[in-house]
């Protein structure tokens, strides 16, 4: 398969919501990078392939902090490859090692977050969640292994109906699951003891970007005095927001909620607005569960400093780095 086709297939899967969790999004990007790295016939090829994948994926999911943070690390390796004029196989190994290292970190993080998160679950809990979060599901799995008796309410999570898949997967683990409509969140919140949600990104002010409907759930939980926990590795911290960058929310294509034949029936002039993510303000988040432990959303900048071991933070725009690398290679 030519490189362009491999990349456009990945992009298509992202847009059409075949990739539901943001961790999976990163893993699929890694797979693509790995394939293309192995295929690259020259340094030039390697640089073009890598930067192409990164810039295309970020273009369609600019909100994924894990994607951006991992990309920054990969680009740093690429920068070194170009700057130090490494040989092709050395360069390939450097990139592949970086990918392996990041993949390992993601797996370890999920494991640690799951352990910490499971500690927060007690027998008798009724937990509400929404959308497809690999980390949240792992938390439930861990708590189940500890023989805790709890049940989960999951919303259908339109667009994409992720909830149906999550309910099915959790059910197969032997968990008691109740699938409800997104509209029924407030109706059921009075029976719920805790809310667990995953994240696409965590901003510097502690705001959490997650699948659309999450912010509604957090608001409703807040009203009902139900605690809201966010499971997010520090790879999901959005360092750019420290500099006041706003996060732009991507939208899903119309067909995800309105099939063509239905549109014809109700009127071609109908418009749709289908955000795939929304923002939970920090005041509705009780705690963020990271691989470093449970912290208050307001303490995020502190943890950011500890993770990067620097203050003020430095987070160069990925596209700026890409430009720099491409210029270097053209001049070289």
């Amino acid at each position, binding site marked *: 398969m030519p490189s362009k086709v491999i990349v456009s297939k990945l992009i298509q899967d992202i847009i059409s919501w075949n990739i539901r969790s943001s961790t999976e999004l990163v893993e699929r990007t890694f797979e693509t990078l790995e394939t293309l790295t192995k295929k690259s016939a020259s340094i030039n090829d390697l640089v073009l392939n890598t930067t192409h994948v990164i810039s295309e994926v970020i273009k369609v999911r600019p909100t994924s902090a894990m994607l951006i943070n991992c990309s920054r690390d990969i680009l740093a390796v690429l920068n070194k490859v170009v700057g130090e004029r490494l040989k092709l196989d050395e360069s390939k190994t450097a990139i592949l090692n970086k990918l392996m290292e990041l993949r390992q970190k993601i797996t370890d993080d999920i494991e640690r977050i799951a352990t910490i998160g499971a500690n927060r679950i007690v027998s008798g809990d009724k937990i509400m969640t929404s959308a497809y979060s690999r980390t949240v599901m792992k938390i439930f799995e861990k708590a189940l292994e500890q023989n805790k008796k709890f049940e989960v309410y999951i919303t259908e999570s*339109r667009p994409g109906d992720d909830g149906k898949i999550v309910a099915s997967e959790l*059910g197969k683990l*032997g968990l008691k*699951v*109740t699938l409800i409509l997104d509209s029924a969140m407030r109706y059921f919140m009075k029976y719920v003891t805790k809310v667990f949600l995953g994240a696409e990104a965590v901003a510097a002010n502690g705001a959490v970007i997650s699948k659309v409907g999450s912010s509604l759930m957090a608001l*409703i939980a807040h009203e009902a005095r139900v605690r809201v926990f966010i499971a997010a590795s520090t790879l999901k911290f959005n360092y750019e927001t420290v500099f006041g960058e706003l996060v732009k929310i991507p939208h899903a294509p119309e067909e995800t909620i309105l099939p063509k034949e239905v549109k014809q029936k109700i009127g071609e002039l*109908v418009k749709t607005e289908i955000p795939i993510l929304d923002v939970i303000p920090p005041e509705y988040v009780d705690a963020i569960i990271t691989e470093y432990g449970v912290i208050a959303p307001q303490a995020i900048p502190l943890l950011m400093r500890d993770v990067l071991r620097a203050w003020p933070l430095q987070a160069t725009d990925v596209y700026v780095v890409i430009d720099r690398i491409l210029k270097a290679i053209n001049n070289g």
Partner: protein
Amino acid sequence: MVKIKCPIEVLQIANDIKTMKIRGAGRIARAAAKALKIAAEKYEGPDDVEVFIAYIDHAAKILLETRPTAVSLPNAIMYVITRLRRKRPINMAEAKALVAKLSNEFIKYSLTATEEIGIIGSRRILSGDVVLTHCNSTAALSVIIHAHKQGKDIKVYATETRPKFQGHITVRTLLSEGIDVTLIPDSAVRYIMKKVNKVIVGADTVAANGAVVNKIGTSNIALAAHEARVRVFVAAETYKFSPATVIGELVEIEERDPREIVDEKYLKENPNVTVRNPAFDITPPEYIDAIITEEGLIPPQAAYLILIEKFGWIIQDYFISKYPSRGEDEE
């Protein structure tokens, strides 16, 4: 006292309501009112007003038993019955004419209510307003359409309204009026709220404290609107107000078939997954800015006023039937 048999035409209407041949809150209410009129016209008992009233009560009871949960039905019947008792007609001719008059009055009131709600509500809509609506409410759409016809420039967001997508009907209706409408998923109501400046929804039932029972998801929207300081209007004909709630009755929430959400195959393959599908939720009065009725715009907390004005004697009857001793004390 002699029991006079209920005419066949009345039994037929009762049966049609029961089998859902007649459905929709408004249509059920009007059919019941009409049935009482027919009962009065077909009365063949002795020339005794007391007997006549007992006979009408009997017909009312048959009609009431058809659909125990729909609030519009008892309200239509009680509208006629309580006024009949209150007036204390002196002879049979007056009694019969009174039932016919009350029945016609109710039918007319029900038919014109949505229109009047539209006119009253539209005054609250300004050019440039962005309105969010949920499900498919004739009364709520009446408000939007009236405002549009007055030349006001309005943009509407309509939720798709899972599981049955009534939002699609709303979209079709508004598009046919030439109104700018955007469909959104139910999960996006908080996201969209910052672009919205008014919420208009309908009601299935309004309780005595002003709480509104409506399509599931309404209370999500009302809370999100409240958070964003967006005004919430409920468009509801007065026959949607529930007298039974005055005596503390709870409004029962119907849970519907899970197969409206997932298919049979999914249920079979996932025995550990329960699918719950409540059809309605309850929006507390503190999240509602006003209820638009055909009698005017009221704060939800004034629901009691509508109930007493429209259904005062019904409420007293409920007390008597629930607490006979209290009723006797008052006599």
